[in-house]
């Protein structure tokens, strides 16, 4: 028997089903996702210091578990699941009612605050806080992940462990309720 001939480029008999693999390093992913996680948590907890502490915890956990992350899955869903679990742990420990009527995102000592927009932003955020507070827990989870965490429906479903159809339904009902609240506010 002679030597085996060298395989040609054309004789592929199998192609992997899914080719999208997350190829970025942890630091690249951190740069991309920090803003989304920080903003999401700042919408969920009653003051920005807690939100910033939670953001720190999320990324420390993410670094610790990064070797376990399967790069064929969505990094957004993975990191937001960590954020969601961290937020739930925080609520349990603090026994805090999410989005209560306490101080929220005050401008004190916040170096990142833009002075020219502060007043308007504060009013808008207080209003948002008030309106989100009138939704159910599930509606808040879905709407904040979807519109403040900027996740897709399937990613929200993955984070919350629900089906896409139930996320769509919760989202639709939540938006409808928010819409009614805005209309009510407008009339007043």
């Amino acid at each position, binding site marked *: 028997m002679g030597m085996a*001939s060298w395989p*040609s480029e054309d004789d592929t008999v199998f192609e992997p089903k899914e080719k999208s*693999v997350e190829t970025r390093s*942890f*630091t690249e992913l951190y*740069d991309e996702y920090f803003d989304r996680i*920080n903003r999401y948590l700042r919408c969920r907890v009653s003051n920005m210091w807690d939100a910033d502490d939670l*953001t720190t915890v999320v990324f*420390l956990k993410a670094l610790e578990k990064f070797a376990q992350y399967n790069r064929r899955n969505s990094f957004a869903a993975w990191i937001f699941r960590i954020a969601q679990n961290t937020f739930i742990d925080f609520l349990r420990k603090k026994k805090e009612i999410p989005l209560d009527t306490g101080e929220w995102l005050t401008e004190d000592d916040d170096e990142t605050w833009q002075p020219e927009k502060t007043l308007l932003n504060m009013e808008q955020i207080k209003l948002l806080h008030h309106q989100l507070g009138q939704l159910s827990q599930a509606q808040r989870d879905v709407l904040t992940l979807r519109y403040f965490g900027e996740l897709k429906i399937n990613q929200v479903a993955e984070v919350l462990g629900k089906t896409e159809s139930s996320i769509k339904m919760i989202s639709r009902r939540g938006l409808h309720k928010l819409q009614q609240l805005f209309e009510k506010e407008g009339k007043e």
Partner: protein
Amino acid sequence: MKQQSPEERQDLTVSKLLIHLREMRDVVPVNQKLKQDLKKKLMGQMMQVDQEKYIVQPNTVKKNKKLWFGMVTISLALLLLFFLVLRGDSSSNRKILPLKGMQPNEIAALSPDGKEFVLIRQHEVSLYNSQGRKLRSILIPGKGIITQILYSPTGNELGVLQQEEGMTTIWYTSLTTGGVQLFWEGSSSKVRGLRWSEHGKLVPLE
């Protein structure tokens, strides 16, 4: 003038609401100072973990010596066996070397049972049977140069060492599920190779 239907009015108010939510999102500030500080902290932790990985604990030295002695003996025996098999090729149908046209910059690894091999050719990793027929491509993330590829003792996994711009990345690939996981990444100067431990764990070699 045409009046809007209730559905059209509903669509309009929902789209206004979505625009409003987007505006709300944009006014929630992000703590940029925390972003910078935390990044430094995380990078510091990554470096610390790297260092700890390569520090041998004093109480494990004796155990490791025995382990190493055993492993070196087994490796030498296997090497000898491999050469004997190659020399007596008339009775072996697992011989795959030499292969025509293999370039010096291409890397190949033989599965433990000798029935398959992987080849890295122009950044593409492919799995072949012993007849030289390509079975499938193996997707390894990253754009670095693959400098080493190793079958696990079971033949079900691969360890891949990749280097790019001063960074070394080690990937772990399951040949059964096709899953790829990042095993380690860090400074290039730290890792010179890979091996599989007797417990089936990937071990970077300093």
